[in-house]
């Protein structure tokens, strides 16, 4: 039985298999002595992403009779998450284009090779960079198809471990190594915490399977359904610890300390990746874990998340006001947006019909919209150089509109979408998200979120003010590759299109979360569900 289950599961994972293979090819090809071959790593990465995307949608259009299946989150949610990771991954790929080539070590090694001396592969991390890039995206995609705590743990690790290396090596600067250090150590701590949570959940339920349609094997959701509303403390503690650990991935309240330092220290394209990929993985995992107990959430869990959401957005926005480094501002904005997203998690799917009642659908929509806007903003920043270093402060980007009006316009669109101004996608996302809070009768939380949105406008407008009304005293230059600008442009177009014509994506997210809202397991008590541990 198990063998066929494994094979069936593997048959649904062709896109991920392609991406992992692409990553392995990148690692090898990046070491090639021929310059043309090792430079093709970027193209291999893009090709792997594109092929994975095509394989993912092929069964849907009937081009290929591949298997599709989701994990605990259901087929449609998994599909939505995987596809959005690939599409935004393509944008991130464009943003990342020149990162390894800009490193001084790479330039030294390439210059030496150009003069006929042998190429020293240990100085160039081009292959590694793009391999880890693909690994991280694959991890986020695998989170969506998890139906087991072990799988979820491995997928989360696959998302995070490569990013630690990308942060530490993506930029030749002490700050990058410091950021890598902080990110890695807090990451290891968070993993230990959510693993302890997972072990307690396993202890309470006796299984690591999240949802199962059959009676055997027993699943966590089945166990919870058999409890008839009771909630053993061991399970509650386990879920709580898991949430605290996952707060690291989404940059939310108890684990948000690292965010500003890491975002500032990492190379800007890596920062763009950090703002989207781990957040997506973390929110999908939180949805999976909470779908086990179902909405409306039990009162203690609801309050924990309520407080997490309120504190996260307030901390993010208040500290964002105090910064004068644009990357730090965007880092605090990332924290604040996690707070807004948690509002949707608290509200969850409600029984009332209508578009505005779907907290989870709103979360999926908002992550994509936030990802687009933030990738746009970071891509613009990533294009700019001051004295060979990244442009980071308000002073350095002031007067951008006079020198590079196009880039300033792209920045404007991204930032306005992050604020949530009407014609742009960020507005649709916020209405959708806060609407779910209203229909779930979380008026208090909605008010906190609305006030926070108003506060956040102050620092966002400072960025725009610097770009459009500041005087340029410092000479800004552009990086050589055009890919970053292309990425920013595509992100801005997507934000505009989703703002004016976002209805289809709202529908898609509603379709995607329909299966999460209704956990279809037998409600009768499970056979092997253990007695509560007090029997020891």
């Amino acid at each position: 039985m198990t063998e066929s289950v494994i094979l069936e599961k593997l048959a649904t994972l062709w896109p991920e298999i392609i991406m992992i293979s692409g990553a392995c090819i990148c690692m090898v090809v990046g070491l090639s002595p021929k310059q043309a071959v090792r430079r093709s790593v970027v193209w291999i990465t893009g090709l792997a992403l594109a092929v994975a995307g095509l394989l993912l949608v092929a069964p849907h259009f009937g081009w290929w009779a591949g298997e599709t299946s989701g994990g605990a989150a259901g087929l449609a949610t998994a599909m939505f998450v995987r596809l959005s990771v690939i599409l935004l991954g393509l944008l991130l790929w464009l943003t990342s284009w020149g990162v390894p080539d800009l490193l001084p070590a790479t330039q030294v090694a390439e210059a030496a090779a150009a003069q006929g001396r042998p190429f020293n592969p240990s100085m160039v991390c081009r292959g590694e960079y793009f391999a880890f890039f693909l690994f991280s995206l694959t991890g986020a995609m695998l989170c969506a198809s998890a139906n087991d705590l072990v799988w979820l743990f491995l997928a989360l690790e696959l998302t995070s471990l490569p990013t630690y290396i990308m942060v530490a090596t993506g930029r030749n600067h002490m700050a990058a190594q410091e950021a890598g250090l902080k990110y890695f150590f807090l990451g290891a701590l968070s993993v230990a915490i959510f693993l302890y949570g997972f072990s307690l959940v396993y202890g309470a339920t006796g299984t690591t399977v999240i949802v199962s349609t059959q009676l055997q094997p027993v699943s966590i959701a089945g166990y919870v359904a058999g409890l008839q509303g009771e909630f053993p403390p061991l399970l509650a503690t386990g879920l709580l610890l898991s949430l605290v650990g996952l707060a690291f991935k989404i940059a939310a309240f108890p684990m948000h300390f690292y965010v500003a330092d890491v975002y500032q220290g990492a190379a800007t394209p890596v920062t763009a990746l950090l703002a989207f990929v781990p957040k997506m993985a973390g929110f999908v995992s939180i949805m999976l874990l909470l779908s086990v107990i179902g909405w409306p959430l039990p009162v203690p869990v609801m309050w924990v998340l309520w407080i997490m959401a309120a504190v996260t957005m307030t901390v993010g926005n208040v500290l964002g006001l105090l910064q004068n480094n644009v990357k730090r501002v965007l880092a605090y904005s990332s924290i604040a947006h996690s707070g807004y997203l948690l509002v949707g998690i608290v509200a969850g799917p409600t029984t009332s019909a209508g578009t505005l009642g779907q907290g989870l659908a709103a979360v999926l929509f908002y992550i994509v919209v936030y990802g687009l806007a933030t990738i746009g903003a970071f891509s613009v920043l990533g294009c700019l150089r001051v004295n060979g270093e990244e442009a980071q402060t308000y002073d350095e980007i002031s007067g951008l509109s006079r020198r590079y009006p196009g880039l300033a316009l792209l920045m404007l669109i991204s930032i306005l979408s992050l604020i949530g101004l009407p014609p742009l996608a960020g507005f649709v996302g916020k209405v959708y998200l806060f609407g779910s809070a209203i229909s779930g009768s979380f008026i208090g939380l909605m008010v906190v979120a609305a006030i926070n949105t108003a506060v956040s406008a102050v620092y966002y407008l400072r960025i725009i003010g610097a770009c459009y009304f500041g005087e340029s005293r410092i000479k800004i230059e552009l990086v050589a590759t055009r890919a970053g600008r292309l990425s920013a442009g595509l992100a801005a177009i997507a934000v505009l299109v989703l703002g004016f014509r976002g209805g289809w994506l709202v529908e898609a997210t509603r379709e995607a979360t329909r299966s999460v809202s209704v956990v279809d397991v037998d409600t009768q008590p499970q056979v092997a569900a253990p007695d509560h541990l007090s029997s020891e």
Partner: protein
Amino acid sequence: MVVSELHSLVLSHFLFTGAVLFIFGLVGFLCRRNLIMMFLCTEMMFQGVVITLVGFSRFHGNLTGQTFVIFVLTVAAAEAALALGLVVLLFRRKRTLDPEAWGELQG
């Protein structure tokens, strides 16, 4: 049977050992001022998780927990490789293992 020989060991022993290791690791992580010791403390937290999983696995009479342990140990090994690589990189830069030396990013 191993179980009958160890009949005096009950679940709470496993859980207690696991929790103690986890908390010692956590306290050590927060208090130690040496990168390698800090990393070993996170490893200790992992071992606390491992003992908890094994205890629960024995209690429930299934092997899921022990399977989980194998994966946890594998990932812990991967993390160890990464951590030591990172620590060597940092040590070459500053010739110290004190995390306080890395305080440039603030604000």
